[in-house]
């Protein structure tokens, strides 16, 4: 059997020079493209013609997906080097091959697939549950009291230790008015929310009346904008409708057209800064004087409104995870992720998502969670993490560390054990001894251990 295997990507096949040198180094060897089927185990050296841009994690992903012992995997930055003059390439390739030796250095990353199950907290709408169930992702119902601990890419639900891949928060939505209304203005009873106004439309006679619509830029849904555009029909009934908004929302299919049609029907759209709007009741208390300033030219605007309709401003309130992610002091307040690279509906905590407000977006949300659960993830290995809240300060770790990497630090009020990264050799002796289970060597928690290799005799 050959000792060495040369793997290449279809886009960058090995040159004859590369093969020749490889043969000189190893004698008999196998060459296969990445993705070809067949057993790849048993080679002492698996050389991959890859890229210099590959990270440790990419290598881990590759070794796991091909089921190659990561210790025997070597990556040569072929993609960058192949275009160099042959003499230079030859030198680099030869040097690389000469230096190949069975690796003893540790692999610092491992690929894990999250457990395919979701936990909704505090509860989930039935429609959403249906989507998940029918999409083949089991939904775990939480016990009345539980806590979550991160284990690898999963969460473990304590005390039972049942693992879940994704944790979905159902936020509550706080509604406020886009402009502060004072009591006097409110007492005219001419201020209505869009949905209330919509419901009372049939009973209102709007001929010759002025309707001013205030739209907040935060937390609206596209359904609500459709309702705003639909108000243009009132213009045909003899009313005048003015929409005061910071921005007209047209970023949805067909909205551009609806906007155009609404304007054609006589609806007025004015871009204003909502903060500058002033509402005062008229002396007869039957109307409201609305003054604002146009954003584009600063021109003062003034309307006498018979009805003042507003689209509520919504802010999302994520449920507090205090007590649930209690063992993770830093992490128990997730926020909506503002990183453009992260998945939609995700929070600052990996694996923690929030349910969107619009039911229309539920399928899209489901797709995001499924995508997350089906994508293997590289997790960092061998970093010592001390859970300060579990730590009983018993000093066992400190006294047993062969490298004297642990020390007592913290403040006078609360001492804590600190790891000196430069000294830590990641041996895990302290994790094995810690009586409070406060020290984790990432990747080596008992329930995270996965076999690196599996040999089956029956095969």
């Amino acid at each position: 059997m050959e000792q060495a295997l040369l793997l290449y990507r279809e886009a960058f096949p090995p040159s004859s020079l590369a093969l020749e040198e490889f043969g000189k180094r190893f004698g008999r060897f196998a060459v296969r493209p990445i993705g070809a089927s067949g057993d790849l185990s048993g080679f002492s050296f698996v050389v991959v013609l890859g890229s210099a841009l590959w990270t440790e994690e990419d290598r881990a992903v590759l070794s796991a997906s091909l089921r190659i012992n990561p210790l025997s995997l070597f990556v040569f930055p072929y993609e960058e080097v192949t275009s160099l003059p042959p003499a230079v390439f030859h030198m680099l390739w030869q040097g690389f091959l000469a230096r190949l030796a069975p690796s003893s250095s540790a692999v610092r990353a491992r690929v894990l697939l999250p457990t395919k199950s979701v936990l909704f907290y505090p509860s989930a709408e039935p429609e959403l549950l249906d989507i998940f169930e029918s999409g083949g992702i089991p939904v775990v119902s939480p016990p009345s009291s539980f806590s979550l601990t991160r284990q690898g890419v999963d969460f473990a639900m304590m005390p039972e230790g049942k693992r879940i891949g994704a944790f979905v928060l159902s936020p509550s939505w706080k509604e406020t008015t886009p402009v502060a209304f004072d009591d006097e203005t409110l007492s005219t009873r001419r201020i209505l929310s869009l949905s209330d106004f919509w419901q009372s439309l049939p009973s209102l006679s709007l001929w010759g009346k002025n309707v001013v619509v205030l739209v907040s830029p935060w937390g609206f849904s596209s359904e609500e904008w459709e309702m705003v555009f639909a108000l243009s029909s009132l213009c045909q009934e003899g009313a005048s409708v003015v929409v005061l908004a910071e921005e007209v929302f047209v970023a949805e299919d067909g909205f551009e057209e609806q906007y155009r049609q609404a304007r054609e029907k006589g609806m007025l759209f004015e871009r204003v800064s909502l903060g500058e709007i002033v509402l005062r009741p008229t002396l007869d208390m039957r109307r409201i004087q609305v003054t604002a300033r146009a954003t584009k030219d600063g021109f003062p605007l003034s309307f006498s409104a018979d009805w003042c309709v507003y689209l509520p401003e919504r802010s999302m309130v994520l449920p507090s995870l205090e007590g649930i992610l209690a063992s993770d002091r830093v992490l128990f307040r997730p926020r909506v992720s503002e990183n453009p690279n992260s998945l939609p509906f995700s929070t600052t905590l990996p694996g923690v998502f929030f349910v969107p407000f619009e039911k229309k977006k539920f399928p899209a949300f489901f797709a995001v969670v499924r995508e997350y659960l089906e994508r293997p993830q590289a997790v960092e290995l061998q970093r010592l993490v001390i859970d300060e809240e579990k730590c009983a300060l018993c000093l066992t770790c400190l006294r047993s560390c062969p490298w004297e990497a642990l020390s007592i630090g913290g403040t006078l009020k609360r001492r804590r054990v600190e790891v000196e990264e430069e000294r830590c050799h990641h041996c895990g002796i302290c994790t094995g001894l810690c009586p409070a289970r406060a020290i984790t060597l990432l990747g080596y928690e008992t329930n995270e251990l996965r076999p690196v290799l599996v040999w089956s005799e029956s095969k």
Partner: protein
Amino acid sequence: MIVGERKPIQEILAVLASSRRVLVLGCGACVTVCLSGGEREAHEVAALLNLRGYEAEYGVVERQCEKEFVMHAREAVTRAETVLSLACGVGVQTLAELFPRVPVFPGLDTTFMGAPLEVGLWEERCIGCGECIVHRFGGVCPVARCAKSLLNGPCGGSKNGRCEVRPERDCAWQLIYDRMKFLGRLEELLDIQPPKDWSPSRYGAQRKTIREDVRV
């Protein structure tokens, strides 16, 4: 801190007998620090019981001697048929008091109040006699550390600074002598210590402390 030792596993198996669902409940205070009843130990016992065919789960509360903390384990306790407590004798009793219907078994033998001297080595330092007199002995307590609680000097068995009862232990009186010599207070050892008043100790009857000023 209170030091304990896990009971032999056979003894534990004998008391668990026919119950299937077992909760192994550790304590996050003293017995965690003395490596006998913390989360690690609770997990160890639970994993072993699982291998033996039990349905064991494990947990740990901050301090098993306080009701407020033990209540956090209520759900797990009610799920179980039997609770094996890895806390000291105080914790076991609090647990049993709070959940009178659930059989609670001690999984730990509470041994003494002592200090860790190095990893894996603890030594008794105090027997809670109710009247501290260490200042008369250079800070070494003869009541706890002398096998015979001698207050007036070493017995005849002290040899090479070791105790006659357990030759691997230090003779408390050798320590006292050395310490007092170092402090230049040897003459104080010539005072005859009167018989100790044992009434504030355990021998007086079960003890109770009341702080009227903080009671609400």
